[in-house]
């Protein structure tokens, strides 16, 4: 067992699970989507990205790319949330909530890809 691999896999899977937790629920209903969960998703996703830096294999490059996609989607979601809460005069609307959640849904797909790649790599190593 390799501690580095454990931490690596932990963050990648955690990024997916937290992201999923935020995503699940009625897409327009703010009550179903916890802001703390979005915050956690961003932080975990950033850490996962940093952990992926420097792996120069092909699979490493793809992992880094998926992580960057997830970061991008989540940060844009957070910016929209901040904008509608503090800048926009209307406050939170179902429309804005749907945009935020669908962005996190995109990040979820990227995170799923990451996990699939991770599992594939693990399987290949075992063989």
């Amino acid at each position, binding site marked *: 067992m390799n501690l580095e691999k454990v931490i690596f896999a932990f963050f990648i899977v955690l990024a997916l699970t937290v992201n999923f937790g935020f995503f699940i629920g009625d897409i327009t209903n703010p009550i179903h989507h916890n*802001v703390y969960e979005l*915050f956690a998703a961003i*932080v975990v996703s950033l850490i996962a990205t*940093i952990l992926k*830096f420097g792996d120069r294999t092909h699979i490493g490059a793809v992992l880094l790319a998926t992580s960057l996609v997830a970061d991008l989607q989540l940060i844009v979601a957070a910016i929209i*949330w901040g904008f509608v809460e503090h800048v926009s005069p209307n406050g939170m609307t179902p429309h804005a909530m749907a945009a935020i959640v669908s962005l996190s849904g995109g990040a979820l797909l990227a995170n799923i890809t990451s996990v699939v790649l991770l599992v594939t790599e693990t399987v290949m190593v075992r063989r």
Partner: protein
Amino acid sequence: MRGHNIIFVLLRRLHSPLIALVCVYAICILGFVLIPGVDDKGQVWHMDFFHAFYFVSFMGTTIGFGEIPYAFTGGQRMWSTFSIYATVVVWLYGIGFLLTILQEPGFVQLLGQTSFLRKVKRIREPFYLVCGYGDTGSKLVKALTESDITSIVVEVDQDRINILELEDHRIFVPGLCADASIPDSLLMAGLKHRSCIGVVALTNSDEVNLKIAISCALLNPGVRVIARAETQDAEKNITSFGTSQVINPYETFAGRLAMSLHSPGTFLLHEWMTSVPHEELTEPIFPPHGKWILCGYGRFGKAVHKRMIKENLDVTIIEAKPEKTKAPGDVIVGRGTEAITLQNAGIENAVGIVAGTDDDANNLSILMTAGELNPDLFMVARQNSRSNDAIFSAAELDLIMRRGSIIAHKLFALMRTPLLASFLDLAREQDETWANQLISRISGIIEDKPPHSWEINISKEEAPAIYDRLQAQESVILRSLYLDPQDRSLNLPCIPILLRRRNNDNLLQPDENTPLEPGDRILFSGRRRAQDMTQWLIHNPHVLNYILTGEEHPSGYLWRLLTMAKHNKGTVEQPR
């Protein structure tokens, strides 16, 4: 050689500070969101993520702006205090880490390599790869850049690379600090680059030069290799790869000295034709025949001795360690720096002395002592290091053999125009009168700078105007190539010194009425300005037409139509 991506290397090394930064920020932000505050109406208020991120961002970097949007409670202030220390420490850690990495010798080297690779990749024009940037290498690179030939330097000593970077060359010369005997370094420096036309191996080790020649022969068989070899073994070894040319500094050196002794005219011609740009014009010298004294019987001494015996000169050798150097029996033992040794060698009735030891200070000391004993001596010095230029020049010697500069000159002549090397070979076979005549012809057209030589190829690419005329079965004579495009009654300040036909027939100093043929290659010698003029007339059909006929044809369509109308009316254009 695989390129490294600097950004990725840097990011991989920065793993821990970056993760620490993200974690500390996350904890601080979360703390501000969770800790309850009080708003302006005295009600419990929770900071949201947006404000928490805003507050932590400016707090971590500036510690300013105050408590927003409402004044903080005690709990919030306590958390702020913690956050200030945590973020400042984590920033210091991250920045300190980054600076340490940037200063690491390994990383600095990686940075240098990456930028070098990028520069090499960007080169489009043909270039030479020069291995070794010592006395010879630096002189050669300077001469090449002055003639607009690109070169790349590989040198094992970082100090010399630093010197290269500080020098002010006309063209930028990329330098790589690497061991040229490792094929990877040569590959990095562009051995397989499609613009690489030649490799010059000038390191002080024969072994390294041999290794370079082998690497080139195997990795890029078409490339031209010129290697320096100090021993005959290495010389033979390197020539066995076919494409390589070898230069032995001692032999070249001794050959030049012998040439100056038996044919000063040819020697001067050599010096002129192989001189590098911006050098002073060498004055002719006339070494006397008679008894010579040779100090030092090392590799240089042996080569000189061999040539002097060939010239039927009476040579007395002075050598400090005759057993070690296997000097012949009648050698005078000593260093030659003391008067007594020189007197034993018969300095009073000698006509010349060669100070040829490998120690510059000893060489000068020998010559100064000898000069006191016999002021009429013809004094030849061997100068080993370029750093002693000043004192050797001040000593007012008759002939100074600078090792680095002789080899650099020879290489430069070989590399600039292949025809020049053939010309020098042919010139060596001619007699002294021929050489003197050519010298007087050349000195008639040049000023105080040595002659510049260049080559003209009568081909479709390099001389389209001439080539088209020849294809149209019109005859063009050699003289047309060096008439002044501004006034055809004058000659340009240059002369053709060698014409090589397509079938490799060589015409030395060809007659001005020789008809040109496609595929001819002509070597010109003269002033630099003349080269630009000849380039103009071999490229531009209108200029060529003026040169050949004296008429200036209108070049635009409209003007051509107008003149045709004029012609039809019966008026004839007056030739200029």
